[in-house]
């Protein structure tokens, strides 16, 4: 008992990141279930959550990553993973926004044309009657 408590105290950052990433994964899954988040846009989040969870859980994996990248303090590599993930998600946002504004523009144009068309037709039918 004492042993495992010592382990927890010595590896607080690891414990926090395991809990944090697990919470993230559960939260994202709940959002999908409640249809607040589309599957398509959840993939990157889940990917990030799972990656983060894995590197938090297996310390040697994190140490390997840190060593490969030349990072002396292993938990700093954890932050790097987090930042890279956040970056990808933000870029995805920009892409989605661009797509949305394009379809928004098309809708606006078509609505404008349709409105003018309706007005035109109304006028014609008035003239006929």
């Amino acid at each position, binding site marked *: 008992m004492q042993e495992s408590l010592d382990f927890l105290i010595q590896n607080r950052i690891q414990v926090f990141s395991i809990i944090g990433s697990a919470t993230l994964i559960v939260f994202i899954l709940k959002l999908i279930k409640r249809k607040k988040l589309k599957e398509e846009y959840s993939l990157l989040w889940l990917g990030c959550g799972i990656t983060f969870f894995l590197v938090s859980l297996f310390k040697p994996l994190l140490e390997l990553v840190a060593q490969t990248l030349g990072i002396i303090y292993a938990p700093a590599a954890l932050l790097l993973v987090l930042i890279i993930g956040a970056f990808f998600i933000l870029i995805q946002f920009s892409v989605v926004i661009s797509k949305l504004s394009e379809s928004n*523009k098309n809708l606006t*144009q078509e609505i*404008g*044309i349709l*409105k003018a068309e309706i007005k035109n037709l109304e006028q014609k039918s008035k003239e006929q009657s």
Partner: protein
Amino acid sequence: MAKEKILIIIPAYNEEANIRNVILSLKKQDADFTCLVVNDGSKDNTQKEAESTGLATVIQLPSNLGIGGAVQTGFKYALYNNYDYAIQFDGDGQHLPSEIPKILEPLYKQECDSCIGSRFVVKTDGFQSTFMRRVGIRFFEFLNNLLIKQKITDSTSGFRAYNKQAIAFLAAHYPTDYPEPETIILLGKNNFTIKEVSVEMQERQGGHSSISGLKSAHYMIKVSLAILMTAQRAQLRR
């Protein structure tokens, strides 16, 4: 053969001071064409002013799209209603209706797909624009030469005529903001021919220019990036 249908596309954003006169002066020309005002979500009385003339079809966009989005609406309208030619004509009184035949003629003669009314082909007496704007225009001239090997001197001119093929193409592909210089590259890249003819222009008669101050830096960077990217993209036709 049926008479050729010509559409004048007039993008207008907060142009209540000018729009009426622009429409009236256009209709004074003998040429037979339809005026289409695209009211780009104006916050003033542009809509009422334009409609009150009874001489123009007015499209009201529910929100502001920017000049490119407004002009493209005109191309879509032209495409759906089977127009043969479309002319882009500013709603601020800068362009002269009497110059329209000049930019239409090369299209009639099938010399090109698109014709730009330019202030710089030969020095004209009319309005020549500010110094900084001319520096920017020079830079785009250089880019045009480099990227599509067509010499276009007045990239920012919004006084243009297009034939049917160009209308159909631009209805599907048209840049949203600051579209003029980018469109030249877009058309050139897709094997449309562009010609420039000399026209006179006037200084704005009221309202405010869409580009000034810090915005011009943003303009140059955005347009240069857009031009370079357009040149990198694969051809969309032919």
